């Protein structure tokens, strides 16, 4: 039997990615850790190796779009699974009056993600197998005054993933959009108004299982499906008067 696909983890320093890599390692899998902080990634790679994985580190910068083609060209000629775990969130208050920061949020969460996925698509198609899991957010389900720059970038990403999913499905590749609620990560740590926060370990497990089951859309934790169903159902006329 052919080797199982290598997991390419983009944004491998994030806490969900770290937990995910340990799950891959526990099964003796192979993983490529991609991100900017190479010293940090080397530490995670060493940890993964001691836990049973074959692991290597590659420099990757989501916003350096020009580098993406080369990054993809240098990947090993083997079937891939992809976990896209990079993201950037600033509180809306920090973005107001600071359009450059808003640009950055869009560049990381939307442009960066689309750019790298578009370049990975031919590889995935050619392999005719594999799973793509993208960490997105419930914030993309509806633009709320408290978080709509981030939310709009994730909404764009979610729409892109719908198209990509339909196209790759014909080639035996699954695309899972993980619509995450509040997670206990460095990105959200210390922010006000968090509740029912999920651990990175549990999020990683959900991503791992979603890839295996070739899920399309995963609300995580699951009850966010209900919360977002309600929020989406509110008529715009009412919604604009709510403080959300």
């Amino acid at each position, binding site marked *: 039997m052919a080797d199982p696909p290598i997991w390419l983890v983009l944004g491998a320093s994030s806490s969900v990615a770290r937990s995910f890599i340990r799950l891959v390692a526990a099964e003796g899998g192979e993983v490529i850790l991609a991100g900017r902080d190479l*010293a940090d990634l080397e530490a995670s790679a060493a940890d993964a190796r*001691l836990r049973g994985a074959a692991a290597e580190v590659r420099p990757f910068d989501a916003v350096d779009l020009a580098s993406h083609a080369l990054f993809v060209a240098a990947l090993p000629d083997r079937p891939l699974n992809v976990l896209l775990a990079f993201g950037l969130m600033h509180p809306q208050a920090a973005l107001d009056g600071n359009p450059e920061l808003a640009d950055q949020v869009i560049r990381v969460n939307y442009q960066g993600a689309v750019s790298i996925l578009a370049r990975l698509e031919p590889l995935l198609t050619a392999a005719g197998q594999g799973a793509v899991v993208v960490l997105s957010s419930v914030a993309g389900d509806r633009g709320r005054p408290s978080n709509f720059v981030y939310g709009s970038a994730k909404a764009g990403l979610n729409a892109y993933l719908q198209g990509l999913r339909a196209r790759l499905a014909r080639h035996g590749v699954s695309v899972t959009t993980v619509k995450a609620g509040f997670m206990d990560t460095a990105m959200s740590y210390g*922010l006000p108004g968090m509740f029912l926060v999920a651990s990175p370990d549990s999020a990683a497990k959900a991503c791992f299982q979603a890839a295996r089951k070739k899920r399309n859309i995963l609300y995580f934790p699951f009850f966010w499906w209900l919360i977002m169903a309600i929020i989406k159902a509110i008529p715009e006329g009412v919604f604009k008067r709510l403080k959300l």
Partner: protein
Amino acid sequence: MREAAAEPGWRRDVFSGWGRLARAEMLAARPERASELAGILAAAGSEGIIVHAGGRSYGDSALNAGGRAILTRRLDRLLAFDPASGLLVAEAGVRFEDLRRVLLPRGFLAPVTPGTAFATLGGAIAHDVHGKNQDRAGNFGAHVEWLDLMLPSGELRRLTPADRLFRATVGGLGLTGVILALALRMMPVPSRFVTVRERRVADLDAFLGALEVERSRAVYSVGWIDAQAGGRALGRGIVEAADPAPAEAGESYAETRGRRFPVDLPGFVLNPLSIAAFNALYWRRVPKDGRERRLAYDRFLYPLDAIADWNRLYGRRGFHQFQALLPEPRAVRALLEACAASRAASFLAVLKTMGREGAGLLSFGGRGHTLALDFPAGRGIDELLGRLERLVLDHGGRVYLAKDSRLSAAGFAAMYPRLPEFREMLAEVDPEGRMRSDLARRLDIRRTA
């Protein structure tokens, strides 16, 4: 909903020691990368900062009420392991549980481990912890080849046992800076099991005699003591001795499934009567003629870990832990008599031998017996703990700081003769006093006055 945090990256929360008595509201940062630490230390104002890692110290050593804390649990990666030498390099937030899961299947065990696998390696250095093999293996610090310490100034240093600062950091209660990583010499073991011999002992003389025999022949030895039995039964208990078990062909190993203690028991459940009844039953758990069993390391080393949150057993009020090293056996009798005479009840009382000094200036070690007691919080406990402190002092012993919640500054200074050296070291590496904890204040370790 919580109030907005004053600064991004910091969160205000209430923390407690494992005994749940000491509580502190702190502004905490939780770095995921070592590169964030210097900035975090720089943010420590006059209220100071302390590392809070596994949260398994019983008292106030990882608390800094009104000040700041660094949560290091996410700095938890294994960095290198050489099976030829057994040398492991790991980040300080790694827990003994991680070592057991990853390295025990490869035939290596932590050479010294505390009674819970949920303690971190950094915490093990900061308290220079010991286990059931202290007699032979000494404390944790004796097996550390080097450690990386970030000084309060943000400067990073690699320290070896030859460095004075190493001796201040081992057992240094986190007051010399932030331990980032360490190299630990792991111990090869033939299997994932120990052979445990248990027997009942009827009184203190028999207990001490049995421990004396075991300290010279067994790798691990420990005794559970019925701290409520008085009179002729004073010091009755169960002595356990264990050695690494040889591998057996075809033996399989299954992880024990953890349980969680679901609720805070109402405070009245643990009272002197119920504990006395429990202790009497527990004593009879082991057959009269003793028994020998093969047990997985985790069940032998970490019996309480099988029940998560077991500290809820004591209810919301929490409990005191008390552990002292007693160089003379007659001091054991004196302490037990004081316990039996008081109405306080202890049911996780442990007596074992110690054989070696620790490497640190404030290490808990030396030759003698160590008695560990727990008391549900309540009236009269303070007086009893004060009495025990004086008894320990009178007998030339010392109290273990990782478990302490009540020791006086004067008592502490008398028990730890190398404190002046430690203070000198602190004045050198932390002149501004950035590292602070409730324990350091209580024991006047910095001597601010």
